């Protein structure tokens, strides 16, 4: 039976995961290396084929110019937004990049947009799930940082589409985590979810009420996470090296990546050890050694983790809550393993934070819960409903370059607002609208989401037309705009083109570009299915040979079957699914008489007062043809 498996995906800065609901429990689907975490690293191999995960991670050190990590930092962003990132991350932008254009990253001599790179990660997760289910996976819930703006969300959705996934919902990461937590303990109360990941920080405050997860406030920083801690450590090491060893390795990508790997290991070790010795062999025979104590480490990272305090306080203020009112604090994201971070959370919310669930996996598990809810639910998720909010206010630029906020931050989504526009000169046919996102008063300080024209306004005297524009933020946190001129009743649907996004046509093109991958996916799946079918028929044959019916076959028939069995075994070792299918069909035909004889034996046993179970069919096939086609989910 083909059931639609809707998977939950955590598309992380550092690691990505895919999970689904197995019965009443969400579980992570491992990759073919048996690991739950897929490093969010993409590289091109020597044949220019993309590789993802641990395979690509090695290439970060060996061929850094062909690999990219932390791509999430660039999702939905423009050139002018990422100047800071460029100083700290080895992103290589395409040289011919024009201002206002979607970013393109160089891997070897090819270029990819951030959604395309994310799509490669998503496609790997999709494949992992397909291998696990032994069937296609086409629908997913993908998580995003709660503080992601419209463009970043749209870019994530585009990545899903490019990967061949229908994105049923974008869910905010802290909210997803609360779903995973809420599953075991269905209780009422106020919880704070503190999510410090590889590259993003979110704080969400939720009210749990009989299965309704109502977000009351959210805040965060989409450029704050473990990466920043790594960069601090790398900077120190590079300074040390240029000072003590007299070698400037800042421009040496290979050395920087080797350092990066070592400092990450050190960082992790410092969560459980009071002191760690950093010892790295560098290119050119240099060796860098340094002892780092936890105390030094904590002093170093204090400014980074202090940046989470402001958003937490703002979220509590927006929720109208004092820390005493928070019933539980939940930790999400790998960086919350750092003892100093835990201490900070305890101080902020006046209670010991929960760490029952693996902070690396909890978001993916929650995404699987939401996928289950969207798929119709189960006993475990019955009555569960997520009411999330928009993290940033939505505004329109009005005269004087001022932002007029029309949907305030922390409004429950879906949310809408209606504005009326008119013309300023006689016969004016177009009205330009500039949509902004952010909290600042002036338009230039807010994030430009989109500019669009209301076109085709019927010619009228200035001020007479009355254009009703409806802004609607959907359950994914993505904006939709529609407009209608009220006096003429003329309707104009407007697609908001994000200021930093791909057009629909571009996304379509990218899906087509990856058509060869789709073909490859299809072949791979066909092969898996054919091999499974072959295994089924071969094991049924083994059973048949032990049955009484086997003895009734002629020597010639037995020889024929043995020949076909051998043929199937031979093609099964190859990668041609069509050849395997042919061999299966042949064997199916060749064993037809055996099947009939087995049926007869079963029937006559029944006549003799024996039941089917007691015949020497054992637990063998009971279908009319014992070699019935295998069915796949």
């Amino acid at each position: 039976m083909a059931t639609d498996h809707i998977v939950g995906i955590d598309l992380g800065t550092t690691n990505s995961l895919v999970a689904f609901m197995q019965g009443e429990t969400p579980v992570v689907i491992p990759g073919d290396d048996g690991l739950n975490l897929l490093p969010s690293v993409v590289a091109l191999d020597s044949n220019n084929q993309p590789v993802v995960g641990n395979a690509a991670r090695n290439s970060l050190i060996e061929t850094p110019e062909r690999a990219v990590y932390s791509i999430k930092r660039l999702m939905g962003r423009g050139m002018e937004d990422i100047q800071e990132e460029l100083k700290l991350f080895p992103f290589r932008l395409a040289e011919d990049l024009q201002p206002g254009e979607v970013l393109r990253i160089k891997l070897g001599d090819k270029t990819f947009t951030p959604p395309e790179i994310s799509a490669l990660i998503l496609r790997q997760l999709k494949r992992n799930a397909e291998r696990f289910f032994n069937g296609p996976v086409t629908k997913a819930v993908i998580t995003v940082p709660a503080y992601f703006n419209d463009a970043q969300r749209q870019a994530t959705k585009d990545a899903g589409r490019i990967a061949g996934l229908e994105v049923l919902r974008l869910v905010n990461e802290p909210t997803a985590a609360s779903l995973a937590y809420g599953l075991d303990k269905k209780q009422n109360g106020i919880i704070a979810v503190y999510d410090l990941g590889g590259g993003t920080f979110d704080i969400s405050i939720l009210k749990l009420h009989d299965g309704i997860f109502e977000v009351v406030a959210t805040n965060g920083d989409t450029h704050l996470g473990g990466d920043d801690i790594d960069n601090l450590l790398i900077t120190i090491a590079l300074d040390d090296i240029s000072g003590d060893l007299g070698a400037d390795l800042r421009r040496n990508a290979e050395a920087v990546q080797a350092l990066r790997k070592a400092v990450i290991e050190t960082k992790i070790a410092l969560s459980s050890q009071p002191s760690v010795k950093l010892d790295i062999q560098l290119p050119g025979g240099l060796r860098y050694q340094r002892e780092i104590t936890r105390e030094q480490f904590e002093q170093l990272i204090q400014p980074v983790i202090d940046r989470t305090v402001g958003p937490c306080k703002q979220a509590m203020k927006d929720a109208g809550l004092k820390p005493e009112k928070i019933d539980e604090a939940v930790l999400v994201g790998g960086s919350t393993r750092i003892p100093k971070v835990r201490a900070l959370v305890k101080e902020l919310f006046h209670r010991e934070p929960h760490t029952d669930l693996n902070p690396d996996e909890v978001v993916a598990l929650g995404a699987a819960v939401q996928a289950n809810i969207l798929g119709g639910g189960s006993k475990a998720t019955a009555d569960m409903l997520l009411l999330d909010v928009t993290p940033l206010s939505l505004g329109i630029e009005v005269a004087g370059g001022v932002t007029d906020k029309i949907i305030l931050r922390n409004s429950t989504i879906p949310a809408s607002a209606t504005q009326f526009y008119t013309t300023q000169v006689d016969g004016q046919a177009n009205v330009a609208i500039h949509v902004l996102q952010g909290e600042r008063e002036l338009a230039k300080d807010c994030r430009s989401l989109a500019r669009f024209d209301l076109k085709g306004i019927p010619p009228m005297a200035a001020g007479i037309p009355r254009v009703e524009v409806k802004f609607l933020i959907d359950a994914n946190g993505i904006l939709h705009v529609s407009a209608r001129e009220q006096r003429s009743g003329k309707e104009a649907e407007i697609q908001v083109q994000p200021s930093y996004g791909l057009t629909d046509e571009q996304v379509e093109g990218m899906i087509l570009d990856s058509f060869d991958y789709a073909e490859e996916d299809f072949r791979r799946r066909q092969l898996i299915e054919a091999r499974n079918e072959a295994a089924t028929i071969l094991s049924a044959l083994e059973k048949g040979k032990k049955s009484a019916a086997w003895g009734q076959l002629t020597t010639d028939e037995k020889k024929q079957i043995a020949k076909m069995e051998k043929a199937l075994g031979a093609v099964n070792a190859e990668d041609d699914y069509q050849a395997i299918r042919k061999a299966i069909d042949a064997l199916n035909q060749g064993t037809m008489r055996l099947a009939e004889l087995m049926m007869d034996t079963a029937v006559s046993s029944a006549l003799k007062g024996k039941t089917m179970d007691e015949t020497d069919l054992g637990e063998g096939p009971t279908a009319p043809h014992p070699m019935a086609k295998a069915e796949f989910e």
Partner: protein
Amino acid sequence: MTKSALTVIGAKPLPEDTHSCWSCGSMRAAHFCESCGKVQPPAPVDYFTFFGLMPKLNLDVPALEKDFYELSRRLHPDVNARAASLEQEWSLEKSSMLNDAYRTLRDPIKRTEYLLHLEGVVLEEQSKSATEQARATGEIKKQIVPPDLLEEVFELNMQLEELRMNKKMGDDDPALLAEIGKHKDALEAKHAALLQELQTYWNAWDSLIDRSQAGNPAPVEERAQVTAKMLDVLNRRNYIRNLVRDVNAALEN
């Protein structure tokens, strides 16, 4: 399906609004079918009507919250994720309206402003963006100082000016800060008191609604009198809020 408070809500809107469910033919509730549970097409109604309420200002907020949760369970796009695309569109539109209505009605000030808007009363735009806009376009913004505040505002403005001068010179005057702090406390107390004043006009408004329900509608002038008083309170309240915001800004800078 159990008969919940919601089906009553659904049944409340005007009788001519009642027709059968587009999907199963059963008599419809306003938001979803009582019989098959399907979301019904959105209708342009005001926020009070959306919740099946009379346009009264004294409102049982916990009951509103309960209805909000129950309606969310029916109307939210997640619940209708597997419905046909048109139904999904309705679900999106209706749940956005539910959220907008709940956000407006649960807050006493927004609720009052919304009612005034329904009554055709134009609020004086006192938001910060309006002030900025006026400043940027060089338009003279009418700032009517409430008469009972004239003296206080005058004194406060003098002190704020002094504070700015001090800051420019790098001087520190704790006595001045204490004075400003005292003014700020007084303003905040007045701000809170105005909410109580507003509530007395709520009662007046609600009794007008009761009268018209009983078939004895109040004359238009009487309604206008009550809304004018509420408007006056809101304007004074906004004025004080802006003032407190300016004081805070001056203290922080």
